[in-house]
């Protein structure tokens, strides 16, 4: 199946993250090692960590954000840019705390999260089911995949007018829209994961006379786990993007709505808090999926 899309992109993202993860794990494991050896010499221990190259690497990563924050503080203090547009970071932080205090942030966040999860569940499970079906039966692939390829050519936001008309502007519109986004990455990665299982594994199963069901459960699906997991991550990332998009277009609540609302009131600090929150949450979702993935795939050759 050839969906003309970028659903494989995550392979690269992973690559990018692995580098930093390796650096991080080296830093911590090195530290653990040293802790065992010189547990009583805290001063020496600390200075060793501070001297390791990896720690310096981590520090380097902080340089740019700090520079940017300082720059923004200075710039806003002297009002170089229009003060409605560029807000001092400390004011954004204050707004963040204020919104947390009133509970507005949490309730908007909960609503967005609920939409994402329901859309993701619907879309990803459909994608998984169809991906498995088309991978297992080449007749199903021949019949279904041309249609799916056509549908996948439509840019996701092209569906918005149709979905709004058919489902209104309420919850079901958002869930269906998000499900659309989650469906394709899950479909293509499940399909490719199962189709990519080495024939040599299948032969082993054949010598033991495995049934079709047993073959699927004990060989094809486990072997496809890495690819399926890539699909899950991409699908969730896509869902997160689409929930913000959908809430910008039509919503009365949610994080995306909070951003629009802040803009309409010309309170850019609220907008920046919104952007900050969606970014952080997206990142946390990604990191937690990574953690699940590593624990699921301990067998994977590192």
């Amino acid at each position, binding site marked *: 199946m050839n969906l003309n899309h970028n659903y494989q992109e995550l392979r690269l993202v992973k690559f990018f993250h692995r580098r930093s993860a390796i650096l991080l794990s080296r830093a911590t494991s090195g530290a653990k090692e040293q802790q065992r050896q010189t547990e009583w010499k805290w001063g020496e221990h600390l200075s060793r960590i501070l001297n390791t190259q990896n720690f310096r690497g981590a520090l380097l990563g902080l*340089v740019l954000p700090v520079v940017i924050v300082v720059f923004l503080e200075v710039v806003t203090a002297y009002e170089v840019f229009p003060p409605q547009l560029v807000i001092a970071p400390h004011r954004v932080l204050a707004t963040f705390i204020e919104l947390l205090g009133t509970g507005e942030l949490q309730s908007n966040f909960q609503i967005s999260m609920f939409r994402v999860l329901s859309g993701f569940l619907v879309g990803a499970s459909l994608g998984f089911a169809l991906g498995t079906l088309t991978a297992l039966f080449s007749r199903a692939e021949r019949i279904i*995949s041309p249609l799916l390829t056509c549908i996948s050519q439509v840019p996701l936001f092209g569906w918005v007018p149709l979905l709004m008309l058919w489902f209104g502007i309420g919850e079901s519109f958002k869930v269906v829209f998000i499900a659309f986004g989650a469906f394709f990455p899950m479909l293509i990665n499940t399909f490719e994961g199962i189709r990519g299982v080495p024939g040599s594994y299948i032969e082993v199963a054949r010598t033991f006379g495995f049934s079709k069901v047993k073959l699927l459960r004990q060989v094809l699906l486990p072997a496809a786990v890495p690819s399926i997991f890539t699909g899950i991550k991409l699908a969730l990332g896509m869902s997160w993007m689409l*929930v913000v998009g959908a809430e910008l277009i039509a919503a009365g609540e949610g994080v995306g709505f909070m951003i629009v609302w802040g803009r309409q009131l010309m309170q850019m600090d609220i907008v920046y808090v919104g952007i900050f929150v969606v970014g952080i949450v997206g990142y946390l979702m990604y990191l937690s999926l990574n953690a699940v993935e590593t624990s699921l795939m301990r067998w994977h050759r590192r």
Partner: protein
Amino acid sequence: MKLKLDKIKRIAEGSLLPLAILLFWYLSTSLQLVRRDFIPAPVDVVAAFNETLHDGTFVLSLSKSVVRVLKGFFFGSAAGYLLGTLLGMSKTLEKMVTPLFNAIRQVPLPAWAPVLVLISNGEPAQIVFIAIGASYPVVLNTFEGITSVRKEYLEVANVYRFSRLKTYVKIFLPASLPSVLTGLRIAMSISWMSVVAAEIFMTSGGGIGEMMWSGRELSRMDIVFVCIAAISLAGFTMTALMRRVERNYSLWRLTMKQSA
């Protein structure tokens, strides 16, 4: 002979479902099973296409969007290529910029729209919006292309005491090209998705996405259908062109691998 028959069979099987849907669409609309303002009849869509073609709005909107995509794609991939190359060639820069880059990349693209609209009105905001989306895959792929250059090649550069620039021109640039092209292809497909979003979030001087959006507001579903089809087709064609370029170069990559 047999191969040909197989191919025909394959095409027949593949068009089974689309044809069934077309038939169902045709029947349900002509038999008035569904409301026509919910799903326009095929004839309505063709008529709307004719109408917008004749009054010039179709061509004008589509060409505006195409130019917008090209501009956003160009700026985004240029910036992405530059950043990816710098990050790939300098370990210090990689450590300095990567965390921030990763953090920014997690912000869903649509979230930038409200900010962009305030900073620069209309067209420039849309182009920046598309450029942001297009830059990510180019950064990632360029970075990968550059960092996966074989050590042996770099040792050659060391032996001949190449300057940094010469190392880049002679080794990094050609060796990373296939990967960069993959990034560009993905960027093109993202650009098309982004242009629609951009034209919905930040209305300005027209475009096919805007035409679609106003079609929705006027409850002209026939126009919406025409626009969706046009966007999909245009996006497909331009991505397919990129894929072709990519494929030509990956052939070259294959020979490089074999000789390695």
